[in-house]
């Protein structure tokens, strides 16, 4: 288990967090390389189905991040998104899905350091939790092959 490196998918908005993550790089701040960033126009566009897809395709953790409240490029996309996340996270928890693997953040274009911090802490948390097989293994394809690969 000590060698386990979690796969983290980050869904971020174009205007704040993506720019923030860019700043992390240009500021030469080092952070965990476990994260794959998917850029979307706005948090309002981050459909919950994307998060489900990430888990079913083998993500061990997910980060969702966008502009701080009142800073959304489209004025209210993140306010709508926030309501949806509140409901979605609670629903997943109600279904026993491991919500410790889903992390939400507001990271602005100026917060390069915060982005590194968010990623590092999520990677650490998820590394401690171990791989997330329970969800994806519900599909015959994942479950069978995992067994095959192990054998």
């Amino acid at each position: 288990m000590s060698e386990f490196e979690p796969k983290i998918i980050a869904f971020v908005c174009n205007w704040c967090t993506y720019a923030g993550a860019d700043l992390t790089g240009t500021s030469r701040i080092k952070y965990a390389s476990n994260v794959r960033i998917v850029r979307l126009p706005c948090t309002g566009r981050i459909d919950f189905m994307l998060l489900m897809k990430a888990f079913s395709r083998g993500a061990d953790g997910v980060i969702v991040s966008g502009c701080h409240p009142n800073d959304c490029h489209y004025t209210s996309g993140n306010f709508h998104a926030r309501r949806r996340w509140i409901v979605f996270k609670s629903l997943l928890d109600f279904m026993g899905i491991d919500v410790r693997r889903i992390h939400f953040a507001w990271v602005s274009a100026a917060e390069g350091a915060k982005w590194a911090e968010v990623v590092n802490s999520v990677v650490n948390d998820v590394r401690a939790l171990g791989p997330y097989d329970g969800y994806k293994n519900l599909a015959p394809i994942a479950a069978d092959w995992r067994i095959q690969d192990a054998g």
Partner: protein
Amino acid sequence: MLAKMRQKAKDLLSSGVVSTVIGYGEGSGNRVRALFIRKPDDADKLILDERCVQNLAVYLTKREVRALGRPAVVARVPVMRTIQQLMFEKQVAEGEVAVIGISPDSQVLDFPDLKSMAEYVSAIPFELSADEKAAVEKLEKMTAGERWNFWLDVLSGCSKCYACRQSCPLCYCERCTVECNQPQWVSVPSHGLGNLEWHIMRAMHLAGRCVNCGDCFRACPLEIPLNLLTQKIITDIADKFGGADEYALNAFKPDDKEDFIR
């Protein structure tokens, strides 16, 4: 009240205000079924008792029903709430549908228009029954692992017959997300993942819209308590956003509270 409802149906039909009355009639055995009354004389086939619970608003968006002309619908409170939501979603417009309202104490209600129906039904608090609340709380008290096993177990039987979806008056999409296959968002076969994601997706699409009529649960041949999911969302919306009147996920407050975004 039965006589009054039938009379109302007759009046609406004979005056030509509507061309069809959608109501309840006797069905097989002790069951009741939806009737589509076209002639004033047939209005005497309408019945109204505690078995008449199907949410007839499901027919308001069906093409072949709409093709019959303007309908009137026998509507208890959940049905009226549905029509209100359908109006909000621009599926039903003022003037397109007449409502034969039935109050919680089974009185026949006259509404001159859908706006007055919406005002009437908005004044009735929208909340879960004590039993429904208890069922949600029972699950909330379990550990995450117990809840996971509970849902895997109850959903394992789901065959994806989609009776729950089709009976739902708010699942009127002509192409449901489960049928969108580029990409295939939800697995089609009813294996563990396909079933789990179908039910997450369904509940999320009904978040803030579901009127808790119970038809999805009644439709399921396996009696899967899938309405627990929408009921959980109803309690969350009431707790967290103060029980919005309209579609809660179409609205927001700048100071909506959460405790998990860093």
